[in-house]
């Protein structure tokens, strides 16, 4: 696959087109075919969470949130490919992959509601926290890959960033080190066309992001990121290759950020409605649905029930978060070091004295 889709050949790997038609039968494996229903379910769950999150934010019940809308296939595919021993190194827009690693709805909503406790993802294993400084996490992925190799442990690392992230020095350093050290890392770039308002054409003069792999001496491939089947199959192949050959791979998933950068952003300022409409036809959920419905493997009425059930799950989790106890003062201090040092205890005590005084005043 990686020879055939060598980025220098400027080909994009796609299996199912936006009309839901299988366009690449010879390369479509049974394994990939077998995960499509589960993949669609996961995308639907991710979308339900995402749409609800945006609406909770709009209602003033949650803080700033970065929507995943339109990009669900990539994270769902990674989630289906990752094994327990594999590591996930997220950016912040791949919630389907977090859930696959065990992150719960409650944890995610706690995090986006402003509790660090949620962002710890205690229910997930082999998962790094959300990384806001763009592309900085990719170096951690290379380090984790080194540790797996050093300890001769099975597994691979899935590291995420966006197209904007590929402009940061850390992106290049991470791929360069990974290439030199030959570590099992799958770098997934979600090329959704925009870094906030900045189109990818202003990020790089290169023909693609996948082609950058050539300069680091590693494999790379460009994939239709709205095609669950293509995402899954390329990531699965990449994962097994990375683990077996102990080599990194760069996968560029071509997608579109159908929503805003975050709930603070207004895409109407920098892109056209026509462009957004065009991409709606590429929706990753719609195309797998079409494919499965045509094959009589999916029922839209069942889907309705499923989504309703997902909605209820989300509401229950969010209610738990909304009734969470207040943030205790000690939580500001207790995780800075293994033990709270004396000077921090003094600062905490000073605040407590003020709080008691204030209470006495009222």
């Amino acid at each position, binding site marked *: 696959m990686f020879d055939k889709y060598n980025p220098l050949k400027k080909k994009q790997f796609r299996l199912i087109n936006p009309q839901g038609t299988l366009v690449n039968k010879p390369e479509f494996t049974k394994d990939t075919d077998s995960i499509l229903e589960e993949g669609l379910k996961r995308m639907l769950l991710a979308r339900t969470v995402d749409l609800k999150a945006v609406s909770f934010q709009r209602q003033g019940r949650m803080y700033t949130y970065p929507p995943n809308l339109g990009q669900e296939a990539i994270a769902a595919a990674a989630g289906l490919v990752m094994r327990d021993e594999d590591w996930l190194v997220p950016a912040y827009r791949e919630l389907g992959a977090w859930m696959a690693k065990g992150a719960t709805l409650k944890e995610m909503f706690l995090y986006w509601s402003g509790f*660090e406790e949620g962002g710890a993802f205690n229910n997930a294993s082999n998962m790094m926290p959300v990384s806001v400084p763009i592309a900085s996490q990719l170096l951690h992925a290379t380090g984790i890959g080194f540790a797996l190799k050093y300890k001769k442990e099975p597994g691979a690392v899935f590291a995420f960033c966006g197209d904007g992230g590929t402009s940061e020095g850390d992106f290049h350093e991470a791929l360069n080190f990974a290439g030199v050290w030959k570590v099992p890392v799958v770098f997934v770039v979600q090329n959704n066309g925009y*870094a906030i308002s900045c189109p990818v054409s202003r990020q790089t003069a290169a023909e693609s992001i996948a082609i950058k792999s050539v300069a680091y001496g590693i494999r790379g491939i460009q994939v239709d990121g709205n095609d669950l089947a293509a995402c899954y199959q390329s990531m699965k192949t990449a994962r097994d290759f990375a683990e077996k050959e102990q080599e990194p791979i760069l996968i560029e998933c071509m997608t579109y950020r159908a929503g805003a950068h975050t709930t603070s952003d207004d895409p109407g300022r920098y892109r056209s409605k026509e462009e957004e409409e065009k991409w709606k036809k590429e929706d990753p959920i719609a195309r797998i649905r079409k494919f499965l419905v045509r094959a009589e493997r999916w029922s839209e009425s069942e889907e309705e029930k499923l989504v309703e059930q997902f909605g209820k799950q989300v509401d229950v989790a969010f209610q738990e978060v909304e009734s969470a106890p207040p943030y205790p003062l000690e939580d*500001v201090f207790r995780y800075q070091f293994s033990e709270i040092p004396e*000077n921090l205890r003094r600062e905490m005590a000073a605040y407590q004295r003020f709080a008691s005084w204030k209470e006495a005043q009222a």
Partner: protein
Amino acid sequence: MKVMNLVQAINSALDIKLNEDPSMVLYGEDTGVEGGVFRVTEGLQEKYGEGRVFDSPLAESAIAGTAVGMAVAGLNPVVEMQFSGFVLPAMNQIISHVARIRNRTRGKLTSAVTIRMPYGGGIRALEHHSESLEAIFAHVPGLRVVIPSTPYDAKGLLISAIESEDPVIFMEPKRIYRAIKQEVPEERFTIPLDTARVVQPGEDITVIAYGAMIRECQKAAALAKKNGISVEIIDLRSIFPIDRGTIGASVKKTGRVLAVTESAATCGVASELVTIATEEAFLNLEAPPRRLAGFDTIMPLPKGENYYMHEPARIFYEIRQLMDY
């Protein structure tokens, strides 16, 4: 005169300088088409073209580093870091080059770039969006560090920063970007980069602060007034260099000083202010100078933010402690 908030005042300063200085270019992440995530550069690309006001690729180190190159080659770059928490990849360029080019070349070359960035908490933001890093910049030899607290000061100080022969880190208190409105001249005016401002005169105690904390200190001073305490508030405006004269004169008069900062206490700006007050007015002190700084912790996420951000009652409480000493 026109009523402006901080965003409009900063925009006005940028507009005036772009208009009168053809060597000025303005760039950063989303500063062009979008007009910045806080809309500070709104309308400037339309007015001055993509050649002078543009979006850079997403790379803070490159933004600062290319600005050095432009500056030594005769341009006047004004760059934006989207949030002060995102400036960290650029620190190598800022500390190793922006701050040092003049000294390294014995004045032959200068890198008088202006690096703007919104800073500070109180806006219920995600991690890395609420940092106050002014003490880190002030600690670096070779950088001027400026923080306005009003629209008027923001405009006058920014024009001075852009015209300065020195590199200036211009930090904008985003919490009050739109919270304070004031009459500001529409035309060009400047404010010297190294002078503090007496916000309100008082007799009993000097409170020194800057940026978004000024407004909180004014509220605390109003509480104090009700309790018969007359507070003099000094707005530092320049974090480096610090205006020792204004501080010394005030503390000699009041005999008590409270330094208020949002950023962490240890090795912070408040520590510097307490030192200066002690050096300048030791024999006049009626109580040990006091700091109210941020905890020495990582800025909490929104649900813990209330503990971290100083409320007026906390500032008043500290004033009280000093008065009761």
